[in-house]
């Protein structure tokens, strides 16, 4: 797999899952830390449920490849999210490879795993890897959040519009003299001073 994966926020990924549901479709979302796979899998399920009417199953592979395969075959959901693969030893990946034809069910399957687990998947389970094709994405966990640049641009627009500095706005709020216009609420939150509201 190429070193540079395309970034995708969970929302964007969830937004195009409609096109994949109800067919034997495979993709992988790579998380930055092995320890975050379960949380990201849960967040992804919430995103899909929030954005679509699709049924979602979250399956853990931590009990081994055989049980994971059994769970995939038993799942009736349109989207199946698989995580808990981080501690698989070589033998477990090889077992998963052996069982790969049983994983082919009419649902969209999404592996959520770390880059190191993906490397093992590619090495020991090339058949399963071939299911993924090019559908491997890097999770952008901050994709829904204003970037520092966007945040600064909004603050600068507020400073220019009202001719005040951030410190002056905080001082007004501390003295309970903050104008009540909604933009001042945004201003304080952008400064991480929502506590003054």
């Amino acid at each position: 797999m190429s070193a540079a994966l395309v970034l995708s926020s969970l929302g964007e990924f969830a937004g195009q899952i409609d096109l994949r549901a109800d067919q034997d479709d495979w993709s992988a979302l790579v998380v930055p830390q092995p320890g975050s796979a379960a949380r990201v899998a849960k967040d992804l399920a919430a995103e899909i449920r929030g954005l679509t009417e699709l049924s979602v199953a979250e399956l853990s592979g931590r009990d081994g490849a055989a049980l994971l395969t059994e769970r995939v075959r038993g799942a009736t959901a349109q989207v199946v999210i698989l995580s808990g693969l981080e501690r698989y030893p070589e033998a477990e990946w090889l077992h998963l490879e052996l069982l790969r034809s049983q994983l082919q069910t009419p649902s969209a399957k999404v592996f959520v795993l770390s880059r190191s687990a993906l490397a093992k998947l590619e090495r020991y389970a090339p058949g399963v890897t071939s299911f993924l094709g090019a559908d491997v994405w890097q999770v952008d966990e901050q994709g829904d959040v204003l970037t520092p640049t966007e945040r600064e641009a909004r603050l600068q627009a507020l400073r220019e519009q009202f001719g005040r500095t951030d410190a002056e706005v905080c001082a007004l709020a501390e003295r309970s003299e903050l104008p009540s216009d909604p933009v001042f609420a945004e201003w304080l939150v952008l400064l991480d001073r929502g506590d003054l509201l």
Partner: protein
Amino acid sequence: MNSADISAATAWLGRAKERQRRILSTRLSPHGTAKDLFRQIRKHLLEAHDSEHLKTPRHEIFNLVKLTPKTDDEVAITGGEKDFSRTLQKPHFTRADGAMFDFVITLRELKNGEVELLAYDYELRFPPVDRDVSSGLGLFPIFLRFDLNLPGHDNDQDAMRCHLHPGADDILVPAPLLGPLEALDLLVYEIRPRNSERRRT
């Protein structure tokens, strides 16, 4: 100001405050987290795109709707950028009829699992073609903005905490308290000329 004037002013201000109290008594505290509300808003806008009410592409909707970093209980959900000078050049959502809008909602996550609306502003701007009054068919006002101000420390302001700017920043008209999806319903679906072919001046 003589005593009769003072009495009249006190009376109308009292009624104004009572009106505002009534408006705000429709307590809107959506259940869930700011992130839940963020997802509902994004879904609303994506559905508007899918039904061709919004021209803004799906990928741009994902780029336009953002949360402020979560470091505290107070969070803002932003939709596009505030266009103070109404240049129409700032990132915004565009309806199929060319009208544009942006919004900011500031809220607080409460311990009881609800979110409290602290402030909002939703501004709808009509396209330049609708501003052409030479034919006598121009659409006024050229913008509408629904605001929920912060709870005022000045009691006089409280009488107009929830208001509409009908095309003028200095004019405030009392408005209903709007839930986030209700406000988007107004901007996306509801507020438009009754008959775009037969404009009334």
